[in-house]
Each structure stands twice: as structure tokens, then as C-alpha cells.
């Protein structure tokens, strides 16, 4: 899936000092960018085709990655409703991703951007998003904590790395006061409350908001909201998936009588050797 043009060119991104200066002395409204990715529904039975080199998306129901929708998108919309501002959703993907983009618009995003490229390498996806962020004046870029298909947790941090914006990972709450943000985030063995000023990138985890179901008005309004399609910039793709396999099946459960829990203790000690 790696195209020739994308591997031939090479881009280095520089922090956008200009952007920051542009925003500093203004009293503009907050501009939120929510990055949404497409993921197979959580109940999908996973299978592969082409000699186990491709994910089989036949009959698969695709959804907005739950972290992006339930937490990042809903929180951005809540803050916009409270404080004013705009919420743009962005997806790097092919034209058939417009179904999930429309859903995000129905939930309440104002407009959308689709970067027309295969999102098969995280650094490539992040460089596309970073390049777009530089051409606009976003204040906060919100990502999900990870996609539920490839479980990378990488795109948000990479965007921040390219832009030289602060990256707040695993944020569980976000409050704004002017351009000062207060966030809760998960850290090893606990959580902490932090403060910083915009612009920054965050990855959203459970707790940031509650999922919203789009209503009829939202669904109707979404039909006429704009989706801007832009072409990718050239950037290298460094990683690829060469094959898949399914994990080994368990050999079957060994049942122990509820009357003899000591038998279980014995098996855990002597057979499984885990206690």
C-alpha cells in the first residue's frame, strides 16, 4: 500500500513559531481540532485475507474510534457550547470514511477535513495532521488515547513532536479559562492535575466526557456541514504490516469442583506455576 511518491520524498517539520505569535495578542475564539480515526466495531470477528497479509473488512461495521468520539469529540463540543469556538474534525483516510465523519458532524462538530490518504503508518498520518495544523490556527488538538484496532497510542504524541507543542497524554478532564487549560491526566500509579496554556495536543481517556447520541436535528444539520478534502503532503512511510496471525486457541478449560478449591490452588502452584 506504500505509494512510490510517498516514499521518495522526505519532509522535516519545524515548530511553527509564527502560529503562536499570530494567536498571542488576539482575543479570538477557541478553535478545537479533533482527530478521528475509523475502527472496526468492538464486536467484530477478526479475520484476514490474501494469505493473512490483509485485514478482512468484508461485513465489518466501522465506527468512530470510541476514544475519539466519546471523549475527545464530546468534550470539545461541550467546551464550544459553554465558551464559544469551533470544533473541526479531521480524518486521514479514503473517501468511504465520510460516513464516520458525518456522524461526528451529527454529534455536533462544525466542519470537517479529510486528508485523502491511506493511514497505514502512524508517522505519516501525524505528519499529515501536523502540516494541516500549521496551515490553520487551532488552539487545541484532541486525539483519542489509542485506536482500538492497531492500539498504537502514537499519533497524538507524534503530532505534538512535529509541531513542538506540548503533549498531554491520557487526559481524563479538560477545563478552560481563557487560554489556560486545567487537565487531569493519568500517570503511573495515580493521576495529577496540571495547568498549561494553549496551544497543545492531548490524548483523551475515559472520564473526559460521556458519549452522546446524535439527535435528528444533528443528523439533518450534518448533511449540509462542509467536509473539506485535501491532498496529502509527501511524507515517508517507515512502517508496514507484513502479515497477521490469530493467537493460539486455548486448549480448553479445566473445570474444578466448587467443593474443592484447594485443587485449584494445587494446579495454579504445580501445573501452571503462577503462584
Amino acid at each position, binding site marked *: 500500500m506504500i505509494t512510490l511518491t510517498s516514499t521518495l520524498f522526505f519532509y522535516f517539520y519545524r515548530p511553527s513559531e509564527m502560529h503562536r505569535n499570530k494567536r498571542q495578542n488576539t482575543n479570538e475564539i477557541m478553535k478545537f481540532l479533533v482527530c478521528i480515526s475509523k475502527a472496526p466495531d468492538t464486536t467484530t470477528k477478526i479475520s484476514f485475507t490474501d494469505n493473512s497479509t490483509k485485514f478482512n473488512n468484508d461485513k465489518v461495521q466501522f465506527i468512530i474510534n470510541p476514544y475519539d468520539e466519546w471523549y475527545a469529540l464530546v468534550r470539545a463540543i461541550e467546551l464550544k457550547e459553554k465558551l464559544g469556538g469551533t470544533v473541526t474534525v479531521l480524518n486521514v483516510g479514503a473517501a468511504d470514511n465520510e460516513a464516520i465523519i458525518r456522524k461526528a458532524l451529527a454529534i455536533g462538530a462544525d466542519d470537517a477535513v479529510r486528508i485523502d490518504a491511506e493511514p497505514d503508518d502512524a508517522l505519516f498520518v501525524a505528519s499529515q495532521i*501536523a502540516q494541516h495544523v500549521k496551515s490553520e490556527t487551532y488552539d487545541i488538538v484532541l486525539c483519542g488515547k489509542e485506536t482500538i484496532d492497531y*492500539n498504537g497510542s502514537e499519533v497524538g504524541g507524534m503530532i505534538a*513532536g512535529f509541531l513542538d507543542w506540548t*503533549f498531554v497524554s491520557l487526559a481524563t478532564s479538560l477545563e478552560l479559562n481563557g487560554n489556560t487549560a486545567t487537565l487531569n491526566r*493519568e500517570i503511573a500509579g495515580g493521576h495529577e492535575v496540571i495547568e498549561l496554556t494553549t496551544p497543545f495536543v492531548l490524548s483523551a481517556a475515559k472520564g473526559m466526557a460521556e458519549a452522546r447520541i446524535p439527535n435528528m436535528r444533528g443528523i439533518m444539520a450534518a448533511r449540509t456541514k462542509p467536509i473539506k478534502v485535501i491532498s496529502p503532503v509527501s511524507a*515517508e512511510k517507515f512502517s508496514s504490516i507484513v502479515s497477521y496471525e490469530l493467537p493460539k486457541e*486455548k486448549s480448553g478449560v479445566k473445570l474444578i469442583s466448587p467443593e474443592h*478449591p484447594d485443587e485449584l490452588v494445587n494446579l495454579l502452584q504445580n501445573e501452571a506455576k503462577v*503462584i
Partner: protein
Amino acid sequence: MSVLVFVESTNGSFKKSAFEAVSYGARIAAQIGTEAHAVALENIPDDMLKSLGEYGASKVCSIKNDSLKNFDANVFASVINDIAAKLSATIVIFSMSYSGKAIAPVLAAKMNAGMVPGAIDLPKWEGSEMKVNKNVFSGKAIATYALHSEKKIICLTPNTVAAEKTENKSSVESIDVTVPVSKITVKEVVKAGGKISLTDADIVVSAGRGMKGPENWGMIEEMANILGAATACSRPVADIHWRPHEEHVGQTGLTVRPNLYIAIGISGAIQHLAGVNGSKVIVVINKDPEAPFFKAADYGIVGDAFEVVPKLNEAFKKFKSAV
């Protein structure tokens, strides 16, 4: 050319995942005929740093700078980037943990490195191209990732590749780097009070809606205490506030891969399994013999948790007092 391992530490000591990462880095270094170095970004005493040599690190250093007390992925990435440059490291290893997940991608963008977020075994090489396996679809499949960039970052999934001891030939060195000023102000740190952290635990005792109410968690906590385990729960249990949401495991919660996962009164929905099916051994206690969790289990007891768990706790206690 060298391999650099970021070793995670909390309050001045290393976690098991840190030794796994060092050992992993050293074995990769051996594969490609170079050395592995380790760096900690906390003030660690020299003898502790030296002990990383037992897992194959050559040079070991720690950066003693107060600006690193607060976690800031950008600052950490910048420091590691400088150290990697000084040690000519082309491969950087992290643990796929809270801090690793935050720092590694920022560094990948800065270094222009390809990244594998969650390797589960040692890589194989074809020239400079590296292939390594990673869990995908929340553990429902394994994918082989190929990296063809010159610089590479690998985050190692904890508890997948065991640390191996070797002869300690390490030297503790000091290294000079500039630490940029963090743009984050930490207002408050809330530690989850001395409890065993869920993602590091070797044993996890987890319970679901079958426990009927939060008042019945005493026996679950007792089991965890006896076994030195962490406690976890299913999503609805966290959603209805029977348990704190930090305990929620599954597709939309934490992923855990302990040696032993004991699931009590949990049905075993696919979204729950997604977060726990990497566990080495799974024990299921459920009164419904048709509960889907039994299909993913190694050992099972069909029975009422309110009868089975107290008895099992007694048996565990007896075992613990005997060893």
C-alpha cells in the same frame, strides 16, 4: 551505532519492566553487533544504576535535574534525543507504559524514526529492515510489523519478553544535557495509595456485575491481599461507580497481561476479553456454565462466587502460610 534503553523508575527504584527493557535492548544490540546503553531520568544511586549491567547494559547514566521531577513528554523526549545523539544510538527502547507511551511518539517525530508501539518478541533482521510482532485488535490478533527507517523506536509490551541476566560489565557514566523548561505546571499529584499498580501486577483479581454490589468487594480485596495481587473490574462495575474507573479493564479500559488473571462474576464479553486475553493463565469463577469467559479460561469453577470465593481464600491462605 548503539541501542539506547530508557529505563523507567518511580521514586528512585526500577520496575520489573525496566529490567525487561534493558535485557531486550541488550539482546537487540547483540543481534546487530553493538552495545546497549541505559538512561534513567531520575536521581538514581550509582549502585542501582550499576545493577542494570546485570541485564546487559554497557553504559548506564541517570540525569539528575530537578526540572525532570514533573513528567513532561516533550522535555523527556528532548533529553533522550540529545543522549541518543551523544551515544550515536539509532535504536531507542521504551516500555509500553504510561510514560513510554507518551514520550516515544514525541521522540519518533523529533528523530524521524519509525516506531513499533508494543513489541511482544525479539525482532528478526533482513539487512537494516527489522521485523517484530505486536498485538493488534486488542489482543484478538498478532501482526508482524516491518520497520525500514534508519532510526527505530521500539516500545516493549511489559511481561512479554523475560529479562535475562548476564555478566555485569557496565560502567556508570555521567552525561551532560540541557533540560528544556517545561510548559506544564503540576498542581496536584494523587497517588493511588501504595496499592499494586494494575498494569505492573503479576496477579490480577477482577470482578464483575455478578458481585451484586460494592459492599461485597471485601472478599475480592481479601483474595488480592493474600496473593499480593492488584484488583480490577469490568466496565459496568466502574460505570455504576461500584469501583473506581482506574480498575476498569477491557477494550475501552486498561489492558493487562499478568501471569494470572482471576475473573469472578464476569461474563467474558468480547470487549472485556480484549483487555485481558494476553494474561498467561486465566481462572474464571461464574455460576453460569455457559458464560463465554469459560472459553477463554485455563481453569474454571462453576459456582456461586459468594460460596466459592471465601473457600478459595481459605485455601490460598493455607498455601501462603505453607510457603
